[in-house]
């Protein structure tokens, strides 16, 4: 356990030394806050009765979670594989699941910091409403983060190079971003598009945060999807990281 913690702390230090890697995770969601919060009129009827700037809070958090899970983690882990860093770990005393496990810790820390920066910005620019159910919001955020971190690690373990991870990550990130809550509200989407939006994992993250925050409904179904996603993705990365090369 101490070794795992040392691994996580070392990895976190490496991140701080390369702050450019974090730009996407920190700057992109903040830009989204500023732009999206100001696009719609306050009395726009498509937001289930909520203010547009309030409605998009959960989407901003979802953008942070998706950027970490779909772009940052896969690119980082795939580049470790490509450069032979994973091989070096393979012959060390660390069990093979240790590096992905340390990465889960690192990514959680980055998520918490990035979400805090984001909410502070949102609060300064538009003002944030008091969450209706604080515990529900925290649970939704943490489960969403764990689900996407596990997906990111599974992608990173499966993809051969940083470039392929970057390509696939972006390909997933933008549809997730647009359909998962940061794009037009579901009430403004046509029927087929809103069905597709329901199949996008990020939608469940955003709804799991949004519903308890703005008292828009019971998020249990979405939360259950997140638990299932997290379990599935974790099983995938555990299998991928512990198998011996053929």
């Amino acid at each position, binding site marked *: 356990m101490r070794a795992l913690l040392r691994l996580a702390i070392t990895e976190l230090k490496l991140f701080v030394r*390369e702050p450019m890697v974090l730009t996407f995770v920190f700057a992109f969601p903040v830009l989204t806050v500023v732009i999206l919060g100001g696009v719609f009129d306050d009395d726009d009827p498509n937001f289930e009765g909520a203010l547009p700037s309030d409605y998009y809070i959960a989407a901003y958090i979802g953008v942070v979670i998706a950027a970490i899970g779909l772009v940052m983690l896969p690119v980082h882990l795939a580049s470790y594989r490509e450069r032979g860093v994973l091989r070096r770990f393979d012959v060390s005393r660390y069990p093979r699941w240790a590096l992905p496990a340390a990465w889960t810790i690192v990514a959680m820390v980055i998520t918490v910091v990035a979400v805090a920066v984001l909410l502070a910005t949102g609060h300064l620019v538009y003002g944030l409403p008091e969450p209706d159910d604080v515990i529900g919001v925290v649970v939704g955020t943490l489960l969403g983060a764990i689900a996407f971190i596990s997906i990111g690690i599974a992608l990173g373990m499966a993809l051969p190079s940083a470039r392929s991870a970057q390509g696939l990550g972006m390909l997933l990130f933008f549809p997730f971003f647009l359909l998962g809550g940061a794009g037009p509200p579901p009430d403004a989407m046509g029927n087929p598009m809103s069905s597709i939006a329901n199949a996008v994992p990020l939608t469940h993250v955003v709804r799991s945060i949004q519903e308890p925050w703005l008292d828009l409904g019971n998020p249990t179904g979405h939360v259950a999807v997140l638990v299932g996603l997290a379990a599935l993705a974790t099983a995938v990365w555990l299998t991928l990281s512990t198998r011996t090369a053929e």
Partner: protein
Amino acid sequence: MSMVIEVEGLSKRYGSRLAVDDVGFTVSDGEIFGILGVNGAGKTTTVECLQGLRRPDRGRMQVLGLDPRTAGSRLRMLVGSQLQASALPDRLRVDEALLLFGDGDRRSADRLLEAWNLARLRRSSFASLSGGQRQRLFIALALLNRPRVVFFDELTQGLDPLARGEVWAAIRDVRERGTTVVLVTHFMDEAEALCDRVAVMRAGRIVDAGTPAELVARHAHSTMLTFTPPVSLDPTALAGLPGVHRVERHGGRIRVVGTNQLIAPVCASVLGDDGLGPPDLRVHHPDLEDALIALINDSDANGQPGPAPGRTLEGVS
């Protein structure tokens, strides 16, 4: 002497290509064992199976009495490895790497930093290290957990001669402290300088094994003398001297090929009137590289393509 590594009937196939084909050898406690061969001979795959990094299709393996297939995580505690293609994160510092991969004991990390001449680089990032410094760091990492066996794969590839010399001295030092060393290399001078015993691999098979001297005696027979003959010399007369197999002409120079005993008579017959020999006279004794080239060319009899005779190993891919 007890056996540290035992391998029998090891085979590994990649698609249709048999990378390792029925390989068997033993390594005894405290020796430096070399696995030699040109690129693509199956050396690295063999060692990766022993390290538990790859699953062989067939065969029996024991490293320190453990099977790498089933006891991989226990073996990793007892074995040190320097890998052919591996790296560390760019921003990781030298001292952090030793703490990360070691047991966190700062004193043993410091001792290794001193021993491997890395102390003054302790705050340097991996990305800023030169090739030789990186190799020294990888050796230090391989030795961190005081392993009983270390695997070094192409340890001196890309190093300048000075750095190679340092690494060689370091490997001898590792053995002096009682660690068994398995050295994978395609540099024959390296194997000759370091290894107690070697196995030569070609196209996935071990074609011969023994001490470097045994391999040289078995496969490399020819001593060569080359020189520009004095005008007075009749080159055809050299062919009749004892020990001479043949005399070749290369431009203005003559090459006499034969057994070790030819040196004295040939030298005697090329003395000038002033009592001195040709200034460009060179003697080439048979070495491990000759033996390996002979071994590879012998295997051509099996219908497998091989490099042209006389080419150096570095030129073979």
